[in-house]
């Protein structure tokens, strides 16, 4: 009981995995706005010990995985999430890295924390739609989603990406967006959470989602 009271009063904390890719300033600003204590770290030890992790990222999948491996962060993330059951939120490229692998710049294996693969948008289905998929777009989430709690269905979130995951044969909570084809906009299962869009750039919808993640 005492521990519970302590937890509810203490400031929530998150560790952002820093591997030099992407605009972490925006993520930090959003979390600060939500009164979350943010630590930015590239230390495998700190990441192993952090109970709440956030993996951001913009750029090339291959380059990102190479960097994570070089810094021994791949193992640290897997051990923290799979071994210690710490929760993680992957954003944009960070979401893709949590998957099984990507065909961007040649097949590259991911962290494999959930079994979805990353591929280019299907050109056939895109028609005249432009890649990268950029801008606010509507997301339809499962009604019992923890990430989307209190967010109306078909709310808009901000996307910038050329590669996507599909939700076919995937177990767990899913949210989808339609861009020529329905693709995986967000995912949640047990302690693994991910969004293809940028919640930190998605107005109040994104802030509420980040708040939800911190409260899970």
């Amino acid at each position: 009981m005492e521990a519970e009271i302590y937890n509810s009063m203490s400031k929530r904390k998150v560790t952002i995995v820093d591997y030099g890719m992407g605009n972490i300033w925006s993520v930090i600003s959003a979390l600060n706005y939500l009164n979350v204590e943010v630590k930015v770290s590239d230390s495998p030890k700190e990441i192993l010990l952090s109970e709440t992790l956030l993996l951001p990222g913009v750029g090339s999948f291959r380059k990102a995985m190479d960097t994570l491996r070089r810094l021994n962060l791949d193992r640290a993330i897997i051990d923290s999430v799979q071994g210690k059951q710490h929760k993680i939120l992957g954003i944009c490229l960070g979401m893709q890295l949590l998957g099984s692998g990507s065909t961007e710049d040649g097949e590259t294996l991911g962290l494999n924390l959930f079994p979805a693969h990353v591929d280019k948008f299907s050109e056939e289905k895109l028609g005249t739609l432009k890649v990268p998929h950029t801008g606010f777009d509507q997301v339809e989430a499962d009604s019992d989603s923890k990430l989307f709690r209190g967010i109306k269905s078909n709310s808009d979130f901000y996307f910038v990406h050329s590669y996507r995951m599909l939700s076919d044969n995937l177990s767990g909570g899913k949210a989808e967006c339609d861009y020529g084809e329905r693709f995986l906009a967000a995912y949640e299962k047990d302690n693994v959470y991910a969004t293809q869009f940028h919640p930190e750039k998605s107005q109040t919808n994104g802030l509420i989602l980040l708040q939800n993640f911190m409260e899970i």
Partner: protein
Amino acid sequence: MLSRNFRLQKVGDLSWLKNNYDFSHISYSIDELVVLDVSRGTRDLNMFTEALRTLSQGCFVPIAAGGGVNSVETAFKLLRSGADKIIVNTPLYDDSNLLRSLSEEFGQQCVVGSVDVKMGPENSYSCWSNCGQSEVTGNAAELLKKIFDKPIGEVYINSMDRDGTGQGLDLGLLDLLPQNVGKPVILAGGVGNADHLADGFNDERVDAVATANLFNFVGSGLRDARQCLISMGIVLPLWDIQKLEERLGIGESRDSNID
């Protein structure tokens, strides 16, 4: 902060903006923020990135920043300070190498080409560079056609004649665009009210409309304008401000700040 009211006119620095407006609340009414360093002469990059950091702390939409971007390093500094996209103007005409380097380094979607256009004495448009100080030789429509072929992700077209006047957009600029452009077009210059914004949105050649006027000078003008556009049936992203405020317990104090 500068208002381009016929001539550049200084209205206040960042602390002025912060003191007069709850910026995070204003930012709830926009889909994207454009921040330009319009200083002429020597630019202070550190001061600009500092301003950008301050603004981006309370603004949770994509931010496009520019003014004086002349190298990949400058662009990188802006991106590290909260910008998501880089705006270029003069290099559109004279530095294809920079455009190529920027798109290779950050991706085409990260680069916005900003085109200043002015009506000339013989009733024909011309493009201007260097903060609107140098007229670019050549026909505006032909220059724009070339600009759309550059490695950039979006084109921002500003009417120098209307900029800061609040008299409405110059939709005539749209006739300068090549047919079936494959890149989003942002139209700017002259928006003074919601109807002006609607004029832009109702033209299918326009993907977005930018305004500084409503944003800088009218307390809840932007919020009201957005509501008005949504009620006119214009499709804009929707978000729930009240819900966030309830969750964070900030509703009351913020509301009292904006009116």
